[in-house]
Each structure stands twice: as C-alpha cells, then as structure tokens.
C-alpha cells in the first residue's frame, strides 16, 4: 500500500511547474548572479526533496522552498566570510528621466543598488515587492519578527532612495526611527 499518494504532488511535477518562479526569486536574492542563483535553487530543492512528504502535507511546498531560498541566501553570505556591502561601480550614475532608455537605465541602476544591499535587507525587499508576501510571512521565512522585517525594509528603501534621490514617505520616515 502506498502512503497517501493523493496528498503528495510528485516532486518532479512540482519542480517543472514552479522552477521558473523560484529561479527568478533566486536571481533577485543573489543580486542577479546566475551561477549563485542556480546553486541556491538546487540546494533548496534538494533539501525540500528530503522532506517532501511532510512539506506536501503542510499544503504549500512552494512556501517551504521560498523560505529555504531566503534563508540560504543570507546564510551563504554569512558563511562566505561576511562579504561587505557592495558599492555601486564608480561610473554608476543616478536615474535620468524622459524616455524609454532613461527608464531602462533607472531600472538597471535600482537593481544594482539592490544587489549592493546587505543580503538580509535584499531578501526582505525581494520577498515583499517581487513575491508580494505580507510582513508576517516574510518574518516566518527569515526567522525574525514582523517588526524586524519592517525596520529592515525601511532601512533598505531609505538606502535606495538616498542613492536615487527620491523623497521618503511619512511611513518610511517613521520606520527608520
């Protein structure tokens, strides 16, 4: 007799269905470093496979893998010797306005600034603004409190804003206090 087959999505089917979304998240978590993103995702999926039955019964295997990705992205930084924050290249210019090319340049600038944030702050922003997760779920994914998520997001946005010259909102000013 096979154990609860109706409750368990085959691992291969899950990977085929969700790997694109997870890979994109991994790309953003690693500052768009493709080889690091592939390594991060492989590790998260291998860990998920080990406890696949239990993860499926929890009802949301993607949530588990995303949590594993986020944790590993910050842990990787810790284990690689606390690599410092990356600064923008010397020739990086602030945003320009006006046309499509300027919009592309602005996005590129923001992404490079995002990649230069400390991994934990970057993870908070990716989970919040790319994965659209609520603060409580981000806190669960990163193993911290919702208050920490809020303050990390606020600091990260303040950093991006300082680089790009945008004005802070009232709530963001409060979050920094």
């Amino acid at each position: 007799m096979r154990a609860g087959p109706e409750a368990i999505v085959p691992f291969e089917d899950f990977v085929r269905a969700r790997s694109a979304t997870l890979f994109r998240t991994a790309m953003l978590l690693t500052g768009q470093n493709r080889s690091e993103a592939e390594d991060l995702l492989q590790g998260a999926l291998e860990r998920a496979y080990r406890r696949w039955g239990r993860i499926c019964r929890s009802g949301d295997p993607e949530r588990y893998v995303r949590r594993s990705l986020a944790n590993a992205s910050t842990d990787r930084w810790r284990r690689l010797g606390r690599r410092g924050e990356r600064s923008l290249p010397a020739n990086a210019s602030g945003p320009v306005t006006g046309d499509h090319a300027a919009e592309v340049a602005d996005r590129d600038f923001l992404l490079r600034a995002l990649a230069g944030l400390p991994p934990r702050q970057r993870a908070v922003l990716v989970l919040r603004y790319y994965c659209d997760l609520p603060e409580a779920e981000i806190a669960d994914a990163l193993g911290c409190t919702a208050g920490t998520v809020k303050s990390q997001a606020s600091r990260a946005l303040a950093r991006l804003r300082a680089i790009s010259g945008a004005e802070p909102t009232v709530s963001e000013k409060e979050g920094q206090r």
Partner: protein
Amino acid sequence: MSEIESRLRAAMHAAVDGLPPPTDLLQQVRLRRRRHHVRSAAVAVVAVGALAASPVTLALHGRDGQAGGARTPSTPAPAPRAAPGTVLDACASAIDENLGLDWRQQSVRAGPLWFIDLRQQSATYYGRSPVAIGGLEVAVQDRAKAWVTAAGLSRGYFRFLFGPSDFKAGVDGHYTVADGEAGVTFVGCPADQAWSFQRGYTLYGGYYLIAGSPRRVALDIWTTASRKPTRITFLVGY
C-alpha cells in the same frame, strides 16, 4: 505604495520576468547529494595531508603562520570512525538548515540524537522503485557520537541511505532494500568546526528505504557510554 517602491517592483519584474529556469535543474538536484559526498571525501583527503605535513609547517612558521615559531604542535584529534556495521556521517557532510525555534518539540530524542519530525514520517514511491523512500534528518549534540541501527524485524524492511549510500541513484533510482545501510554513526562537529542554526547541534540529512509501508519501524540508538541501546519506534506511511 511610494514612488521608490513602485519603481523597485517594476525594476525587479522587468529584470527577471520571462527568465526560463535552468534546463537541467532536476538532473542537477539529483546529482547534488553525490557531488556533496565527493567534496566531503576530498576535504577529508586534504585534511589528512595537512595533518601529515603539520609538524614541519609548524616548526618553520609557528602556529600563527609567523616565521621562527618553535612551539610544539598539539596532538590532532583522532578521525571519527564508524561503529561496526554502520556508515559514518561526520562534520564534513553536515547540512545547514533553520529548523525553527520549536524543532525539539517536533522531534524524538534518544541520548545525544534528535530525530527531526519523526512523529510525522511518510515515505513515497518515486520512479520505478519497488520500495518507498523517505527523508530523515538527525541532529546530534556537538562533539557527541552515537549510532543508530534498524532493530528487530525492522532490519528486514528498513535501511538507511546515508553516508556513501546517500541518494546514490537519485529520485528515479531503482532501489531495493539491499541498497541501504543497516546503520549510521553520527558524530557531532568538534568545537572549532561547529556552526549551526541549531546552536550546539550538528544536523545531518539523508534518506531511508522501506518495503511495504505503512509499517512500524524500530531503531536502536547506541552511544559509547551505553551498554544497552535506547529503542524508539515510529510509524511510516500512515
């Protein structure tokens, strides 16, 4: 949402939306465990080489790498060995995973070993295997050593895929019970190598094979200090 938040969201989507996943992702996941063990073996070889060379190195350079040092090298700790009839999982193959704050409540303890989530075990039939495969994670107290073996009738239908057998044929492998190991020796990391989300514990991950689930499994846990094993039982495949 503020302007910077909107711009950031748009930038992230523009950067990665439409990116295809790696084409060989499943294959890479299947190979990953085997690569991990190859790396672990390489680390062990390098460590043995380093130990062999250390007296000369230390005499020339001192313990801090400074020239002219004449201190006596400390005796290296003996390499951990597997208990008879078991395979070894030692520090080089430890895994990192944040189990959450309540991991002890979800686990079964036997001496220095904690079997993670053992109360909720299930095994799954993958590929063409006639036996089911389940995942098993074990935390061992740093510096402790304990070994676990299938006990009683369980020895006929339950084996471990840890150590050199870990994930050896991947998810599509055609496993039989005989492919697994009768027991595993777990060794916690020494103090100078210990690092874990679960402070004070070393985490290992592997798999097990079981024929004919659902079945009750009995395991015996031994330590160097115990004359009799601690026996635990759990149900797989309910």
